[in-house]
């Protein structure tokens, strides 16, 4: 064994010691150190280069980031007996890596425990409230057209008692309390999707169709009603225009007649007897024509000279 080999072996040993005595943690990691299986010290959460006892210490890495949990869609009846699929997801993270390491070992286990716990809580929460509470978050009134709006007594008119946000918070709170002992912080559970179970969906579609038909009929009937109203308006207006014209015409002619009567009276009143005489005389030529036969006596003023010329 020459010195060079010794030096080389020594260098190699030092390199191995260095290599085994250090480890790096990335920004998204945290670690629990175990020495021959026994947990040692506090979990390491700061990223960068760290020292450890070579060969004896093991680094158990865990994720430090927000982790996702996605539930399987669950078929759940609501309090008002509507069957729906509820699809939830949650966010969680490992806050106590040691405890997490001891209870669950790894993320896969954690996921399956979360499945059990959150699914159960979701089921409880959904089942204790009517559907509307899982769908709506507020009692905000809809700004629908007046004839689009639902008629009274429909189910959606039920007020929301707690609403979607509070409902999911309820699930979160209950599940979070349970998972805390695993060193897990559950920060949020959200409902990703709610859908009707197929059989219910068919019914809902039928209801939507009938609702639309109702709206269509209503619209049509409103149209006809309004049209009739307008026709009535037209009739009224025509009557008003015509009668007004008739009234004014009557007034005008009446006034003219009265005026004429006054004029005649004033003129003829000067000598009524002469007026009668004159008018009667004037009437004769028109009253008597070729078809008129006259019996006349010689005692009449005109013919009296036929009989005698005496005065």
């Amino acid at each position, binding site marked *: 064994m020459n010195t060079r080999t010794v030096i080389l072996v020594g260098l190699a040993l030092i390199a191995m010691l260095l290599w085994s005595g250090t480890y790096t943690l990335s920004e998204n990691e945290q670690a629990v150190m175990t020495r021959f299986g026994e947990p040692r010290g506090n979990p390491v959460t700061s990223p960068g280069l760290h020292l450890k006892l070579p060969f004896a210490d093991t680094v158990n890495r865990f994720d430090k980031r927000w982790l996702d949990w996605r539930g399987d869609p669950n078929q759940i009846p609501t309090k008002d007996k509507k069957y729906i699929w509820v699809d939830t997801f949650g966010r969680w993270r490992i806050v106590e890596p040691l405890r997490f390491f001891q209870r669950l070992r790894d*993320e896969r286990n954690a996921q399956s425990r979360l499945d059990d716990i959150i699914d159960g809580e979701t089921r409880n929460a959904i089942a204790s409230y009517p559907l509307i509470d899982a769908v709506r978050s507020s009692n905000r009134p809809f700004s629908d057209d007046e004839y689009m709006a639902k008629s009274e007594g429909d189910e959606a008119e039920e007020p929301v008692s707690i609403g979607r946000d509070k409902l999911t918070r309820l699930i979160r709170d209950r599940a979070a309390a349970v998972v805390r002992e695993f060193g897990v912080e559950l920060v949020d559970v959200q409902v990703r999707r709610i859908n009707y179970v197929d059989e219910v969906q068919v019914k809902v579609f039928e209801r939507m169709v009938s609702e639309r038909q109702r709206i269509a009929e209503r619209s049509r009937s409103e149209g006809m009603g309004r049209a009739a109203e307008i026709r009535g308006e037209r009739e009224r207006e025509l009557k008003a225009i015509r009668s*007004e014209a008739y009234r004014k015409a009557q007034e005008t002619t009446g006034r003219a007649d009265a005026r004429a009567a006054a004029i005649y009276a004033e003129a003829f009143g000067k000598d009524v007897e002469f*007026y009668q005489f004159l008018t009667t005389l004037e009437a004769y030529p028109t009253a008597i024509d070729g078809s008129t036969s006259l019996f006349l006596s010689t005692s009449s003023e005109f013919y009296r000279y036929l009989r005698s010329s005496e005065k």
Partner: protein
Amino acid sequence: MTDQSPFQRNPDPRDPAQALREVGREFARHGRAARWGLAVLLGLIAAVTSYAQIEPDEVGVILRLGRFTTTVDPGPHFRLPFGIDQIIKVPVQRQLKAEFGFRTDRAAERTTYAASDRDTSREAIMLTGDLNVAVVDWIVQYKIADPYKYLFKVKNVEAMLRDIAEASMRAVVGDHSVNEVLTTGRQQVADEAKLTLQALADRYETGVDIQQVVLQDVNPPDPVKPSFNAVNEAIQEKERAINEAYAELNRAVPRAKGEAQETLQAAEGYAIDRVNRAKGEADRFSSIHQEYAKAPDVTRRRLYLETVKQVLAKAGGKVISDESQRGVTPLLTMDRSSITPGVAADQRDRVPGRVEK
């Protein structure tokens, strides 16, 4: 135990060290010639691993032995070689897009989400606030605002964004009626969904800035579609009925107004005519009477005789009898059996302006 995010493409820091160890053994085994070769090789590796280039739409996040040190802007950059420094490139300038309820062909390639991508239509079906069902396709456009959070705060950021995008859209649609979602409230739904989504994205420390939420196709479910169309038709029908009624109104009223005017004018005409005639006749009478008053007897006789002369000239049959010769039946011409009515009524005396229906 830790997943590699898609951006951590550089090798684990352990690997170069292992290579070093190999290099050491080689060094021991071979002689001087190999030594120089190794030195050159090491130099080359160092040169290659210490250079990094950041593209214009990216920033580089530098991790030194796993610890975040800084972010660098586009351009060439030096870093510590042999994997001591890692650079993760994050496309902060790029407008990223997530589609819901549909997929354009391009987007199909990044299916890290295959499990639920299988049925995109499931993403689109949602319950509205009046417990109806709507099918909503939408897109979310976002940018990475905080590369640090984006990389190190959340696992599976993309998947999580999809989750919270779906949750917030459903929360908003769940608070609107089907009618609002389909027609009047579209913009409002998109705006509210954006706000809700941004709030959730911030709460989850995704480091993502939501630029826009855009509703694409919003439809009623297929089985219900025809009846929604029927409603639209009914609305059209309603409008048409109303318009037709108005058309009738507009056709009749102006005409009636014109006719009314006609009646009034005719009445005015009658009035003028009547008064003028009265005045004329009155004047004539006054004039005659004036002369008559000067010589009543003569005038009277003259008027009488003139008239009788005129009348007798016109009359058809005339029988003149003498009272002193009673018993003599005058001879009649019996060819005129009918007696014509006197003067026909003057047409102008009828009251004008009778409104005809």
